[in-house]
C-alpha cells in the first residue's frame, strides 16, 4: 500500500466510525494495544478529536484516550 493511501486515526473527525487495520510501531506497543482490544478488524468510533492533543475513542464500549503521536501511527479503514 502506498503511503498516500493510508488513512490515519489522527485525521478522523468526531463521530467517525472506522475499523482498526494496524499500528505502525514496535512489538511492545503493538502487544499493548492488542491487550486493550485494538486488534485488526475491530470497530472504533472517534469521540473527541480536539487537535492538537490526545484523542478519545470508543472501543468495545470503553472510552480510551490515545496520545496524538500514537494516533498518527494507527492506520484505519473508514
Amino acid at each position, binding site marked *: 500500500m502506498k503511503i498516500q493511501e493510508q488513512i490515519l486515526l489522527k485525521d478522523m473527525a468526531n463521530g467517525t466510525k472506522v475499523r482498526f487495520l494496524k499500528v505502525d*510501531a514496535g*512489538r*511492545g*506497543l*503493538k*502487544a*499493548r*494495544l*492488542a*491487550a*486493550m*482490544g485494538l*486488534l*485488526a478488524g*475491530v470497530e472504533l468510533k472517534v*469521540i*473527541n478529536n*480536539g487537535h*492538537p*492533543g*490526545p484523542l*478519545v475513542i*470508543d*472501543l*468495545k*464500549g*470503553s*472510552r*480510551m*484516550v*490515545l*496520545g*496524538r*503521536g*500514537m494516533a498518527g501511527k494507527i492506520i484505519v479503514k473508514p
Partner: protein
Amino acid sequence: MAENIKRITVALAGNPNSGKTTIFNSLTGMRQHVGNYPGVTVEKKQGFCRYQDYELDIVDLPGTYSLTAYSTEEVVTRNFIIEQKLDVVVDVVDASNIERNLYLAVQLMELNVPMVLAFNMSDIARQRGLVFDIEKLSILLGVKIVQTVGNKHQGIEELLDAIAQTSQQPMKDYAAAIKYGGEIENEIEKLQQKFDELRHSRWTVIKLLEQDADVSKHIQNQEIITAVQNSIKHLNTIFAEEPEIIIADRRYGFISGACQEAVKNTIESRHNRSDMIDTVMTHKILGLPIFIALMYIVFDLTFRFGKWPMHWLEMFFGWLGQTVTGFWPVGSESVLKSLLVDGIIGGVGGVVVFLPNIMLLFAAIAILEDSGYMARAAFVTDRLMHKIGLHGKSFIPMLIGFGCTVPAIMACRILENRRNRITTILVLPLFSCGARLTIYALFIPAFFAVQWRGAVMLLIYFIGITLAVIAAKILRITLLKGETIPFVMELPPYRMPTLKAILIHMWERGWLYLKKAGTVILAISVILWIAGNWPKPAAEKLAGLNSEQERQVSLESSLVGRTGKAREPAFKPLGFDSRVVTALIGAAVAKEVFVAQMGITYSISKHENVSVLRERLSQDYTPLQGFCVMLFCLISAPCLATLAVTRIETGKIGWAIFQWTGLTALAYAVTFVVYQVGMILSG
C-alpha cells in the same frame, strides 16, 4: 465452635474503575489495613471478614486491565496469585462494560486458580439495557458468577456464599477453558510436555509464547528456550504476526463469542450522560480553565476548612507541652523535660498539625478520582505536559505535590514508563508543599503590605512550577533521554462518589501520615533536638541571662548553631546571615522546622505571638532578603521524608542524592542571581 472455623484466603482482582474497592469495603468494612507487597512499592490492602463458620482473609489486588509484564501492578498481581496458596480469586467485573473486563478474567482463569466472577454495578448494567443469561455465561466460562452492586451492598451475601462453596470444591482445571485454535494449541501442548506436572504450566507456556519479559527471564533451561524460540518462529510464519497479537485476538474472540450467546444488549451506549458532561469538561477551550478553577477550589477548601482543626491541634499540643512542663518545678532545668517538650512534642506536634490539611486534600483527591474527573484532568493537561516531554498522567502527582511531596511521589506509580516516572519524581519537590506554606505564612506578612501578599505567594508557587517545567525538559533531553511513551488511558464513565469510600480513603491516608509522624519524624526530632542542644555552652556564658536568651546562646553553641555559623560565609552572597542558615539546617530535615528554629534563634518562646517574630524579622532583614529566604526554601533540599520515598520509589539511592544536590545547587544559583540583581536594582 471455634475449632470448626475454616480460614480461607481470598484475593480480589479486577480492572480499575470496576468498583473493586466498593466490594472490598463492603466485605471488610473498616477491618482493613494498608501495606506494601514485599520488595515493590505497590500498595497491598488486606481485610478480614466473617461469614458463617468461615474466616476470610481478603487481599485487594491492584486494579489492572490485563496480566502482561508492562506494569509493576500487573506483575505483582500475577506473582501474588501464583505464589500464594489462595483458596479463591474473585474477579470483580464492571457488568456494564463486560467485554473489556472479561479480558482480565480470561487471563486469571489461565492462572488456574479457583475463581468466582462478581458482575458488579449490575444495576447500572440493567439500566443500560444489558440482559445477562448468567447460567449460560457461567457454563461457557466455567466459573461461578454472582451479580453485585458494591456501593449498595447488594449481592454481597451471595458472593460470600459462592466464595465459601468454591473454596470447598475439589480443584478443577480452569486453564483449559479458552482454546487458541489448532496451531497454537499444538505448540502449547508440545512445550507443556517439557515442564513437570505443574499447576501453572499452561499459563507459563502461553506467557513464553507471548514473549513475556518477566516469565522468560526465569527460564534457564536451554532446551526449553530453544523450543520456545522455534515455536514462536513457527507461529510467526503461519500467521505473519507476532504470537502475542494472535493470542490476544483469540482471547477477545472467545469473550465476544460467549457474550454473543449470553448477553443481550438493547441500548447502545453506557456513555450518553458521561459524553454530555465531557463536551463541557474536556472542551477544547473551556477544559483547561475548568480544570484550573476546580484545582483552585480544592486548595482553597483544603486550607479554609483545615484552619480550625489545625488550630485545635495547635492548642492541644501547646496544652500538652505546658502540662508536661508542669511536672517539673518552675525554673528547673531537666534534660528529660527538654527532650519531651522541645524535642518530641514540639517536633511531632509541628507535623501532626498538618493532619487536617492532608486528610482534606486526600478527601478532595478521592472525590476527583472516584467521580472519574482525574482521568479527564490528565486528558486536558496532556497537551501542555507533552511539551516538556511528559504526559497528562504526570499531572496528577504534581497536583498532590502541592499538598505533600511524599504521597505525590508515591502517586507516580501510575506512570508506567520509568523515565517519565523518575523525571516526575525528581522535579516534584519544586511543587511547593503544605509544609513550606508555614514559611511563607511567617515571612510574607512580615515584609509585604497586605495588598501584595497574595501576589507574592502566587509568584513563589509560579517560580516553583516554572523551574519544574524547565528541569523536567532538561532531564528529558539529557539524563533521561528517550521517546515519550505513548499515552493510553481509559476514561471511566462519571460516577457519584460514595461517602464511605471517601471516608475510608481519608482515614487510610491520615493514618499513614500519622505513622510517619510517629516513626521517622519522631526519630528525626530527637536527633535534631540533640544536635540543637549539644555541645552545651560554658556555664559562665549563661550567667545573668533570662531563659529565652539562654536558649539562644545554647543554640549558638550547639552542633546546629556551629554548623550554621561555619556555613555563613557561603551564604552571604544570598543575603543570609547565620540565623537563617541555622534555621535552614533544620529545614533540611523537615521544612516546617524552619519556623520553629527561627523562633529559637530569636529567642522567642513558643507561647509568644508569631507577630513578635515577624516584627523582629522585618527589623533585621530587607524584603529582598525575606524573599530570597522563601525562594531558597522553595527550591533547596527536599525534606528527609521526600528523599526516603524517592529512594524507595526509584529503587536507587543515587536518584535521591541527585535530587538533593541538584535542587540545592539550583536553589543556590537562583537565589544568588535574584539577590545580586535585586541589590544592584535597589542600589
